[in-house]
């Protein structure tokens, strides 16, 4: 429901009593209904800094609430509750409990970047959505998303070998997300591919799956990447006041794979 159409009275704030006696006077009856106040009594001033410390959230403080992001938003067009303008405001003002009410919607951003180009203040709302979804995961408010599992599997492999082996990624991803390997669609896809697959390529893939090739001289690059990732993770932990990241992985594994801006390959899994 668009914000301006939302009721100011939330069902959970309505308190009615079948039987109620106040100062010895029986005031039972449905007219004894009370509405709990929905007053903002304090702002959590850390929240904006926390989001700003995560990749994508850096420019959140620029927002002046014009609403360009929301009215250009692909997702908002189908789900009016998806309102980046509103969430940016909640984060900036530190209305954390209010933000958490929408934790099941925030991750739905499809990264189309229409908001990025509409925003007159260069807030990069898409990045803020990403950072906010990430924040929800790190704080344990939402379970780790499938795309995050994919990111982790993907980056772990790259860090370990300097190469990606698709079959292994799929297997690892399914294992992480508790999905069976033999899924109908996958079996069907493999069957159809196999029918027209060049034998030589099939052999190469088989060998690769068995011997797991590595990039030569990778150790140095792996160490440098691991160091960087750990550094970034430590920074994020500090900013969010977390002792340990919600997902403490094997050394070198990143919860957020370092990657070039604009590469959303991994997000497509959503």
């Amino acid at each position, binding site marked *: 429901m668009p914000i301006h159409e939302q009721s100011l009275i939330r069902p959970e704030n309505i308190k009615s009593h079948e039987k109620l006696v106040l100062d010895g006077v029986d005031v039972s009856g449905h007219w004894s209904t009370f509405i709990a106040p929905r*007053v*903002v009594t*304090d702002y959590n001033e850390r929240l*904006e800094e926390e989001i700003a410390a995560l990749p994508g959230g850096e420019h959140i*403080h620029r927002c*002046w609430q014009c609403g360009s992001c929301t009215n250009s938003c692909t997702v908002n067009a189908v789900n009016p509750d998806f309102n980046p303008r*509103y969430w940016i*405001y909640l984060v900036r*003002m530190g209305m954390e409990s*209010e933000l958490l009410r929408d934790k099941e919607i925030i991750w739905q951003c499809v990264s189309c970047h229409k908001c990025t180009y509409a925003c007159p203040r260069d807030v990069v709302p898409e990045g803020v959505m990403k950072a906010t979804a990430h924040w929800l995961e790190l704080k344990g408010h939402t379970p780790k998303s499938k795309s995050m599992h994919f990111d982790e599997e993907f980056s772990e492999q790259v860090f370990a070998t300097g190469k990606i082996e698709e079959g292994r990624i799929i297997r690892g991803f399914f294992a992480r997300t508790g999905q069976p390997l033999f899924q109908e669609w996958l079996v069907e896809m493999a069957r159809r591919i196999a029918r027209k697959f060049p034998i030589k390529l099939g052999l190469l893939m088989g060998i690769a799956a068995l011997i797991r090739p590595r990039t030569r001289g990778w150790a140095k690059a792996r160490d440098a990447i691991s160091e960087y990732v750990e550094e970034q993770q430590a920074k994020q932990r500090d900013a969010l006041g977390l002792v340990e990241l919600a997902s403490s992985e094997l050394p070198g594994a990143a919860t957020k794979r370092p990657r070039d801006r604009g590469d959303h390959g991994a997000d497509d899994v959503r």
Partner: protein
Amino acid sequence: MSQPILIVGGGPAGLAAAHALATVGQRSVLVEKEQRLGGAPILSGYAKLVPSGEWAKDAIGGMVGRVESSSLVAVHKGCTVQEFGGEPGAFKARLSDGAPLDIGAAILCTGFTHFDSVNKPEWGFGTFPDVVTTTQVEQMISSGKGVRCPSDGRKPQRVAILLCVGSRDRQIGREWCSKICCTVSCNIAMEIREALPDCHVYIYYMDIRTFGLYETSYYWRSQEEFKVKYIKARIAEVTSDGKKLIIKGEDTLVKRPITIPFDMVIHAIGMDPNVDNGALARTFGFALERHGFIGKGNSYGALGETSRPGLFVAGAATGPETIDDSIAQAKAAAMTAFALVSRVPAAAAA
């Protein structure tokens, strides 16, 4: 030699008019009711000015210095104009210090009066010591003592700036936008954040009117570099729980009532018509415009005209105005007045 030009008011506009006339060799008489020249920026102790960032005492002080040292400007301080009559080119004025004057033209640079926040009692000024005005904060900064809560001298950790105090408010008969308060508030917010990095500054606004180039250098900069927070809400009341100030209002962007504690609340006070405007209008015989400022004549031909020929006006006397625009208007009015007296030599006028 032409008749001198009377300049009423020794603020930025009056000083600029006197200086402009002196540069073209024209004599002027500058009358200032206070004992000191400089107008609001000096008398009210402003800190750093918008947009130059110069300290008021340096920027306006320099203007005072060059007027006071000019042989072509006769300065009368602690003095007012008692009588004014005659025709353009041949006015006669009598000052409160007794001097009768023959003058060719007069320029009113009588400025404005700061809004008195006591007129908005619901916002706590005069009731709670830690509710202050932008002028008081300017003084805290310019005195070098820094922004402190007046009640106990502590450094505030949460400061709220309320915009439009004494502006855009039909309830108190002030329907105008005072034009500069948004920019001044952004400036003050940045000064506070710079001096007290742990202090959170919130600005409660109806609209942000940092016009022209002030948009980026004040509004955007305060948000982007200084992390000042802007909340769209007109505050209903300022109260206290005995320890902190409590402000109440509605955050209109999320449709939520707010009741939030602050250490200090700053009123961004507006610009009222000069309290003396009624008396000035009687003495000089000009018309006030509907808000009580001095009415302007033609806006596109001769600049700075009032309803009375030969009597000109410049600066915040005509409505809320910035210092630099006041100066520009004063120079324009000086030009018009100079053209008038140049056509009427003293001998012919006498």
